[in-house]
């Protein structure tokens, strides 16, 4: 994330005005860290920060995909249910293959996860673009479908991963490389690839153009259908990557897996500086947004002066304040 603040000044002078949007989420993040430290010094302990940032990885990875969808003028409410569905399919596949393939069931299962994610994203994309259904309604529909499917697959209970795979798979969530938890590395990698696509490749510009003004984009010869569909596919793949990191944490899929993730994801994207109505996407801001959300929840537990009944209200207030800090820095 530090990389981003350094790279901002290197942009063309034309971009200087909007670079505040890039910095805003990080200002809010910094403010939150300071406030957190004042409330409870344990907040900045290495273990706590590692825990919290690792936890935010699922939302961060999915939200990077959502940055594509929202930037292109779409919306995806199905991501939480999709994550649960992919988790379920992945575990069932791994369990089925494990007796024959042993540890190889894990990479095979990961490949299946990506494939399923891709197909789910494609389905969402086609319903929205070719079917010409409002993204809100279309993905509300698939949200119900994915949730019902995972409930059906689990019989309302849980699908636990095979014991023989449990220990081998654990490091994908609990492991570290050079002291950095693996999920953090994965989310940084996902964000890096995404920012390359969004800022350096032609597709990224198409995405922002379609989101900013559909008609103008169409007149400029951009295929709106293709651009939006690809955004949903990217979203599906991101959900699959998040699911791959999620499985080893509790080693099970349940009908409540990923519940309300869609709202956290959308909040992270918006805190990150991407407008809900579409246009330019802010990948690193989105990642900061996801971390901010998780830090707020963490702070609620570490501080003693919020009644357990009021936690959600205080979280809401902090999110609004974080947005105001960002808006304030925007208008400078």
């Amino acid at each position, binding site marked *: 994330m530090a990389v981003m603040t350094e790279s901002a000044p290197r942009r063309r002078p034309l971009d200087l005005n909007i670079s505040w949007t890039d910095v805003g989420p990080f200002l809010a993040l910094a403010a939150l860290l300071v406030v957190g430290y004042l409330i409870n010094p344990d907040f900045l302990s290495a273990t706590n920060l590692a825990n919290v940032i690792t936890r935010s990885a699922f939302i961060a990875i999915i939200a990077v995909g959502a940055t594509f969808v929202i930037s292109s003028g779409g919306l995806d409410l199905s991501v939480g249910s999709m994550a649960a569905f992919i988790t379920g399919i992945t575990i069932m596949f791994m369990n089925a293959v494990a007796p024959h393939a042993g540890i190889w069931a894990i990479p095979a299962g990961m490949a299946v996860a990506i494939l399923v994610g891709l197909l789910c994203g494609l389905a969402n994309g086609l319903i929205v673009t070719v079917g010409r259904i409002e993204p809100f309604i279309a993905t509300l529909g698939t949200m119900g479908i994915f949730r019902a499917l995972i409930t059906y697959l689990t019989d309302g209970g849980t699908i636990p991963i095979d014991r023989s795979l449990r220990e081998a798979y654990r490091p994908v969530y609990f492991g570290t490389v050079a002291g950095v938890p693996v999920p953090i590395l994965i989310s940084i990698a996902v964000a890096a690839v995404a920012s390359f696509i969004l800022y350096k490749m032609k597709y990224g510009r198409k995405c922002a153009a379609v989101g900013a003004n559909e008609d103008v984009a169409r007149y400029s010869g951009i295929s709106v259908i293709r651009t939006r569909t690809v955004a949903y596919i990217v979203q599906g793949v991101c959900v699959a990557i998040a699911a791959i990191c999620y499985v080893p944490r509790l080693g099970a899929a349940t009908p409540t897996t990923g*519940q309300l993730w869609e709202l956290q994801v959308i909040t992270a994207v918006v805190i990150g500086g991407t407008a809900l109505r579409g246009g330019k996407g802010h990948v690193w801001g989105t990642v900061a947004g996801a971390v901010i959300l998780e830090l707020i929840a963490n702070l609620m*537990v570490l501080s003693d002066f919020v009644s357990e009944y009021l936690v959600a209200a205080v979280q809401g207030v902090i999110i609004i304040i974080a947005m105001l800090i960002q808006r304030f820095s925007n208008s400078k």
Partner: protein
Amino acid sequence: MFSRKWIAAATLGALLLAGQAMAQDKKVIAVSIPAADHGWTAGIVYHAQAAAKEINAAFPNVEVVVKTSPSAAEQVSALEDLSASRKLDALVILPYSSEELTQPVKAIKDMGTFITVVDRGLTDASVQDLYLAGDNIAVGTNTAKFMIDKLGGKGDVVVLRGIPTVIDDERIKGFQDTIKGTNLKVLDIQYAHWNSDEAFKLMQDYLAKYPHIDAVWANDDDMLLGVLEAVKQSGRTDIKLALGGNGMKDIVKKVIDGDAMTPVETPYPPSMIKTAIYMTVANLIGQAPVRGTVKLDAPLITQANAKEYYFPDSPF
């Protein structure tokens, strides 16, 4: 999965055969329960279907029909559908909400049907011929008693509670009333919505906040799974006890295996629906009087009696 389809087909078949059943003077018992949307309700569906299968096989002149509904409104419609086509001799219902279901159930009672209500009581208690429920206060009380005993009456405890409901409040109240006057101290208590993921996060935060914790109580087993994973990750050795509640098969298995951190379990077992169905049948054909209120206790499940509460085939 297949068994559910089979039962669905059987239910449909049963409905089609309704007219014939009446001709043969079969006693019809309708069972209306919530659809499986999380572990505990999945257990309810499993045990209701198991009871229906066993009773239909054992008593040729009794027919048990199980109907699941995904919401209170749909449960009301289901009651109308069940009672429209034939006369019900008995209705066993686990209502979604007491307020919304009281009137519809009363309408069925007025047709002369025996009413058994499970878990959540109706707002008008006179509608219920038999009311059967678990004891949520005892869930808290018995867990607390065990902790006091095991920790020698003193220690630091963190608590994870579920969703703001009567069920959750009663469990917490039972726990807090019991530890009053002992040196057991509740360091923190927060909501984790009966969800493993939220419990995992909350436990990580508790571990970061408190350098010393003697025991954890998650008042539901889904949450306990998240707690155990967080404790395992932290590598901390100060936590002596991590207890849950409800009777999930994975946790009961731990008790059977003599797990050091989770040596006991307190049941609020979904199998109570089965108890209720059997009692209703006893009243209907065995002429065994059952009218009244039955409160199943929440006795500690220990290694000695765990087998009684272990259902390896149940989804919960």
